[in-house]
Each structure stands twice: as C-alpha cells, then as structure tokens.
C-alpha cells in the first residue's frame, strides 16, 4: 500500500463512536410535495455520519446535509485522493463514523480505517486483513467485489468472499468474532453488505450461478452464533415458513412449494441466493429482501415456478419466520435476481396513505408493495421491457412474452431487459425533499442462447450464452428520477454507458452518481441538470456518500475502481473478442477499456474553504 498515512490517536474516533442512531419521532420528517416520505421508524435524524451503505434502514441513501447545494456544488473541489492499491471492482462505500472513515476492499477484503482528523492530512489508522482463501475468487460470478461493511455499536460487521462474517472492534481493528457461513467448495461466496439491527447480523449468500441453495441467516451480533437460517428453496421448514406466513397471492400459498415448484431434487441446487439489499422496518420488526435467480439460467431445466427464488420476502427479524412473499418473476427466464433495494416509504396510494416498500426490480418493473400484506399496488416499467407485457395485479403474476422465452438450440434475440436487468444491484436514492427516487440503471438488450447445463459442484451452473448491447435509443444507461406517487418518471438523463454506481441524494437537492468511464457527477435533484462533474482515474461503480467532517464541513466521498459484472472487461481484464465473456456483458461495454482503466482510489470532495 502506497502513501500510507500515519496511524493517529483514536480519541476523535471514540467520541464519534458514541453517537448511536436513535429513532426519532415521525413528525420530524416532512413529506415531499407528492406526499411520499421515508418510513419514519426506519430513518434517523441527520447526524452527518454514514454508518451503513444504505444510509438507513429505509434504504434512502439520503443525507440531510445541505452545505453543498444546487447553487454551490459547481465549486466542488478534490480535498483528498488516495490509492487503496486495489484494482478490482470497488462496489463498497466508505463509512464515516465520527472522524474515522472505514473502507471495505474487494477481495482480499481488507478493511482500512482512516483517521480523518489527523493532521496535516488524514492518515491510515489500522488495516485489517482477513486473508480469505484465494480459491474463492474462482467461484465469484461477477468480479470479486464486496458491497461494504456496516457499523453498529462500536463494531464493524462485514463479509468476506470466502464466506465468513467478521465483526471487528471499530476502534482497534481487531476481530471480535469470525464465523464461517458459506462453503466455497459448493460455490457459495458472500459479496453483500450485512444488515445489523436488533442485535442481529443479517447475511445472505451469493452463488446463484453455481447451483448453490440460497439462504439468508441472522447471526448474533454479540457472539457471531447463528440465530436462524432460512433457505430459499426446499421444504417449508427449511424456508422458515409456518402458520404465520400469509402471502397475499394464491400462487404463493400451499405446502412445500419450494419442493413442488421444481423438478425432483432440482431445488437442492436451485439458487435463490440473497446477495443484495435488506431493509428493515423497526416498527413492524420485519426485514424485507429479495431472493436471487433460480439455477441454472437455462429455464428449460427447471419447469415450475421455482419458489422461492426471484421474489421478495418479509421476515420477522427475531425468528426469521416468513411473513409474506411475493414472487415478481415466477419461473425466471433471464437471471432476473430480485435482490435490488427496497425503499421503505409511507406514501399515498390511490389517495390513501400506505406503508409500502418501493422496489425497482431487475425485470424492469418498479413495484409498490404493501409492507404489511405483501399486496402489489402497482408495477410500472421504469426501463425498456419487451420480455413481459405487464404485471397482472389481480394474481400478481408477471405476464411473459412467449416469443422472448429462451429456447434450447435457438438464440432468442433482442430480449429487454438483459440478464443484468433494467437495473442491477446498484441502488437508487430517495429524497424526501423532492419525493423522487433517483434510479441509476441500464438500457440494454441481449441475445440469449440456452443449452443444458451440467451440474458439477463448485463449477458454474448456467447453461446460457448471452450477448448484451445497447437498447432502444442507443444509449446504454439512464438516470431516472421516478415519482412513486404519480407512477411515472419525472425526467431521465441519458448516459452512454450502463450505470453501475448507486446514487446519493442530499438535503442540498443535489444527486451524485458515477459513470463507468470515471465521471463523478452532481445533478440538480429537481431538474436533472448537470451541475458539476469530475473525471476520476478509474470508472465508478462504488457507492458515493456524504458526511460532515471533523471540521464541520460537508464532504462527498467515494472509491473509484471499475469492475463488477459490468466492468469485468477492465478489471479482468477480459478479451473483447469474446462478446459472451462476463456472461455477455463484455459485448455491451467493448469500448470501456479505451475509456477507463482499472483503479481503486478514494476520492473526497468538498467546497473550498
């Protein structure tokens, strides 16, 4: 590691660590013009910190800081730039707690603590090296990324690629406990960011491309012991489905659907991982998260609805018992993992205030679902879709277009959205000031050919070739400002490349996001007007954050480093001569190696003093 700053006293950090998120009365959060507001119980008053990747349990990615605003953002200047040494895809956000910043690296998953208050400039406080097993790199489907650590109660919780959950003492960087939960010999890796709430660390596995059996588990935050573990295929008792399970739609009711919606034994290698985002409603004591794709990709090998993959679960956080389930993509045809974020909002639906979760799903529909019942209020396309003609709100079922169904032995052309979805893992942000959700997403279509996949444990279980390319209009990405109440886009920004970085919304009515060719952009949250941009050394797929520094100024930070599924062509580096490389994504971003390079630098911006 180059230019290592000196380790400094931890006093400032300890002071900051004392600040704990406290639930605030609902009245303190104002609803936007359209009446939407974050679920009050799942948000906290702005404290200038960034302790979890989603910012809060409602997954708003909104910070109330407003020092940087529409008027002055154009004067934003770089205040710190530091090479982390990593050259893999950087999908994790920096965390800022007090005056310490924590960086989570892709494999080998080092955690770096930086003392922001150090003089003359911020310096590395400690580095924790978990040394995961190198073999795990071979079973990570889409670059060896990690989506971030979480800070809670003086500890940092994070996962390693080789399937460990680790709790660190945030002050010292020493491991408090580490628990092995995934088996890489079967293809189980962990790339997600855990959710910590109610003394539980919620973790799910990756490996839907390897025929693993997906699960979500809760570990005791104190001891690291497994509290509960819920599978996403198989018999009800494994899925933690019991008498208190009340799905809204009939298709999700029945005994052992996780077995009967699969060919015999296929559920044992059926995927349905949980590698995305978990939201938590402290009022209902329920977590909400989506399950990944069924395995293999080739749908002909798994007739049936393939429960409980590609759907959203609501579970009791204490016991893990499922409360309801909604399958947005029964019998998934295109790897439409349903792991995207759920933004918990309270908003008017047909004139009535409802507690809903809003989820822009991979399949291109933006769902508004009742948090308590699992009823789908609306499902509207926010991107280009030709593989489905709509969602039947009576039955809740997606209506697929038969001519776009993959067929063995014959390539199906021009499927939209692609396997990576209208939007992949990179979450949008919700601003309670504008009432809009800022969705960075893709505009891609693909050709797909499927063939019988062979299951060999620890090797990919796919049975599909894909080639992705720009969708209608020729641009490959969009930033869509979506009005969840009016159920339509307020405006859209065309981006040439697919957007693979999450968005950040601030109280200054500025929205930040990055592009894969390295432009870090600030736009007007009301109009979408580009206000400021900076070109970074490497493409951006990381999560931008904002925080109040020890000096009281507002900073914007992120780590560059292109990679991930979308940027594997650069971080691999992969050969653009094979359009099917990186499961077909290489074809969509053939020009990327010319426009950026592998990297991994921390950037911090602020207004000039």
């Amino acid at each position, binding site marked *: 590691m180059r230019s290592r700053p000196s380790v400094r006293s931890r006093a400032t950090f300890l002071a900051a660590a004392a600040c704990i998120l406290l639930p605030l009365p609902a009245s303190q959060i104002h609803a936007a013009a359209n009446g939407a507001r974050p679920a009050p119980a799942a948000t906290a008053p702005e404290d200038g910190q960034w302790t979890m990747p989603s910012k809060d349990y409602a997954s708003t990615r909104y910070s109330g800081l407003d020092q940087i605003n529409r008027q002055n953002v154009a004067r934003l200047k770089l205040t710190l730039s530091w090479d982390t040494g990593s050259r893999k895809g950087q999908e994790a956000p920096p965390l800022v707690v007090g005056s310490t910043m924590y960086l989570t690296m892709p494999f080998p998953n080092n955690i770096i603590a930086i003392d922001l208050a150090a003089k003359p400039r911020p310096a590395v406080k400690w580095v924790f090296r978990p040394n995961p097993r190198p073999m795990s790199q071979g079973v990570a489907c889409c670059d060896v990324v990690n989506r971030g650590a979480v800070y809670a109660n003086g500890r940092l919780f994070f996962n390693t690629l080789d399937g460990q959950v680790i709790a660190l003492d945030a002050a010292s960087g020493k491991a408090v406990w580490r628990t092995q939960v995934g088996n890489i010999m079967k293809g189980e890796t962990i790339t997600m960011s855990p959710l910590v709430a109610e003394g539980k660390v919620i973790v799910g596995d990756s490996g839907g491309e390897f025929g693993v059996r997906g699960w979500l588990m809760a570990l005791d935050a104190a001891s690291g012991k497994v509290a509960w573990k819920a599978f996403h295929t198989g018999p009800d008792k494994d899925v933690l489905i019991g008498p208190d399970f009340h799905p809204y739609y009939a298709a999700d009711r029945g005994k052992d659907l996780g077995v009967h919606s699969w*060919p015999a034994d296929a559920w044992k290698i059926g995927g349905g991982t949980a590698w995305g985002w978990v939201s938590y409603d402290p009022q209902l004591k329920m977590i909400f998260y989506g399950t990944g794709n069924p395995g293999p990709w080739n749908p002909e090998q798994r007739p049936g609805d393939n429960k409980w993959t590609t759907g959203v679960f609501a579970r009791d956080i204490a016991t893990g018992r499922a409360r309801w389930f909604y399958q947005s993509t029964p019998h998934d045809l295109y790897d439409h993992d349903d792991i995207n974020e759920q933004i918990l909002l309270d908003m008017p639906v047909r004139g009535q205030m409802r507690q809903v979760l809003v989820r822009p799903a991979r399949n291109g529909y933006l769902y508004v679902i009742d948090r308590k019942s699992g009823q789908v209020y609306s499902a509207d396309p926010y991107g280009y879709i030709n593989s489905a003609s709509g969602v039947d709100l009576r039955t809740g079922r997606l209506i697929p277009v038969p001519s776009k169904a993959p067929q063995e032995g014959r390539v199906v052309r021009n499927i939209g959205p692609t396997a990576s979805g209208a939007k992949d893992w990179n979450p949008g942000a919700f601003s309670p000031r504008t009432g809009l959700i800022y969705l960075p997403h893709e505009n891609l279509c693909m050709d797909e050919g499927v063939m019988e996949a062979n299951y060999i444990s620890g090797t990919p279980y796919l049975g599909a070739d894909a080639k992705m390319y720009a969708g209608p209009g020729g641009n490959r990405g969009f930033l869509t400002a979506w009005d969840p109440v009016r159920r339509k886009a307020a405006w859209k920004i065309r981006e040439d490349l697919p957007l693979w970085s999450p968005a950040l919304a601030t109280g200054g009515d500025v929205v930040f996001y990055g592009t894969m060719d390295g432009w870090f952009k600030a736009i007007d949250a009301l109009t979408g007007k580009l206000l400021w941009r900076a070109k970074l050394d490497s493409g951006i797929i990381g999560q931008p954050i904002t925080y109040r520094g020890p000096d009281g100024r507002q900073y914007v930070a992120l780590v560059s480093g292109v990679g991930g599924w979308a940027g594997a062509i650069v971080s691999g580096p992969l050969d653009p001569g094979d359009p099917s490389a990186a499961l077909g994504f290489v074809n969509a971003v053939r020009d990327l190696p010319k426009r950026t390079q592998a990297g991994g630098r921390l950037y911090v911006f602020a207004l000039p003093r």
Partner: protein
Amino acid sequence: MRRRLLLPIPLFVLVSGCAGIQSVSDDAGRESGLIWSLFVLFGIVTAIFYVAVIAFLIAAYWRRGGSNQDGLPDEGGVTRERSLRTAFFLWTGAVIGSLSLLALASYFTDRGLASVNPENKPMVGIDLVANQWWWDVRYHYDDPSQNIRTANEIHLPAGVPAMISLKSNDVIHSFWVPNLAGKQDLIPGRINDIVLMPRRIGHYRAQCAEYCGLQHAHMALDVIVESPADFQRWEAAQRQPAPAPATPLAQAGYAYVTSRECSTCHNIAGTNANGTVAPDLTHVAGRRTIAAGTLPMNRAGLYAWIADPQGAKPGNNMPTVGLNADELHAVAAYLETLK
C-alpha cells in the same frame, strides 16, 4: 421372370407373419395399425399392376416369331396400332384411377394419424431429447416435482395416448417405434411432436432412423407398453431416489461413483452425482439394456461396459476411466443395486 410374378404374394404372407419387437407389420398401436392397413392396400393394388405388366411382357415374349422372320421392320406400317392404342388409353386410365384411389386412401389415413387423441383422453407427456448416441427421457406432470427422468427406455400405459415432444441436442436423429408408429425427426432448433397410442402390452424396440454419426447403429430405445396399473407402479418406483447401498462392496462402489469421474456426467437421484450430460443412472439396473441398446443389462454387460465402453461402442462419449479390478467390482456391484 415368372418367378417374379409370385413375389408380391409371399411378400405379404411373409411379412404379415413376421412378428418382432421392431417390426412394421406387427402393429401394436393405433398409428401403426392404420399405416399397416394402408400398406396392405397399397401392396395389393401395386401387386395387381405388377402382375399386369409381367403378363404383358410374357405375352410379348410369346408373340415373337410371328410371320416375317427376315428381321427387317415392317414395311407397310403398323397394323395393330389401333388395338394397342385402345389398350394404351385403358392402361393410362387404370393407372391414373388407381393412383387417385391410393392418394385418397393415403390422405385419409394421414388425416387419421393427424387427429391426435381423438377421444381427448388425458395424455402421458414425455420430452424425448436425442443426443449422440442415447435418448434422454423426461416425463412431465403438472407438478414438476413428480417429473421423471430416465434414459434409453420409455414406459407407456396401454390404451392411453402419449404426447412425445422431440428435441435434439446435437444433430438430426429420428424417433421410430415401428410397432407403434412411423418416424418423426428430432431436429436441433425445432420441437416436433408425435402422439403414440399403444394398444398391445409388450416390449418393443425403437431405433434412431436418421444417420447421426459414428454410433448411429447403437442408438436404440426400449419401449415397454404395460397395463395402466403397472405403469403407475413404474412411475412411483422411478420417483424414488436411488436406494442406499447395503453391502460393503456396493458401498465402495457408491463412494467411487458419486465422487469420481462418473458423477461428473451422470445423475443418480439422492446422491452427489448430479451430472446431466449423460444418461440418468438412478434406476439403471431396472432397465433392459445398457448404452442405448448396446449391451444387455446384466452383470456381464455392466462389466463389459464400465471396463471398456469404447470397445462395445467405439466413438461414444463415455471415456475409458481405467478402473482397477477392485474399483470395477465395486462400481458394478453398486450399479446393480440401482433397480
């Protein structure tokens, strides 16, 4: 020449009496029955024409050596032209008339074949996927967890129509159970359907009927037509996972098969062998043959096949693993338990 005259008759006598497990004439299904009746009709009509031609030829032979022996052509034109012309038109009329008759008969038989499942009975649904050089058989049901996967052997209940979807993973093959119906090709990129309506209980043999490469000759399929009750018993048995090995030898075989080369390609339900690119072995010992009709399913056949698959069926995709004697005994012992 006179010998030929009688041939069409023994043809039908011979063939009709020619029962066999892979015979067109020994029809055991609705489709093959319709076709055989049509064949017999065609046979009779064509035989009549053949007899007529030969009779005319013999007549021509007998007429030679009429008057004029000088070997020179007639000078004074042709005297019998008129009667020949009459015969010519009669002959042409007879040909056209009988061809029309045959065309109609063929057309209506074809309609009969095309009207699949006229009684609208519930059908057995099977996906048949051809590979070089074996048959992948999948029964499908409304509840996919009841699906059955097997290989190189189809069981059908008598009196129940079976809808078979035909697909190919590589080259063109052709599905043909002569005792039950005509052929239908399996073509990559397409799905063809065929409906079979077996009527007679028995064991029949199907064979790939489109040249498909090195081992086209060894690509057979056993077809077992049984009573609906027997069929249901078979279905139930097929849904069971593979039985656990009991003897130490079989256990050793189990250990090998489920962890080594075999498991890379083959599936044995209930074990760690989950391969999909080779025949499913879950109930392999309950089948009649090994390797798509290449060897009989018995101990000797198993040994021969496992020890040297390239000897019995050169060019097939099963590699010679090179088991030592102990491993060979163990693997064979285990596979024998997979009833």
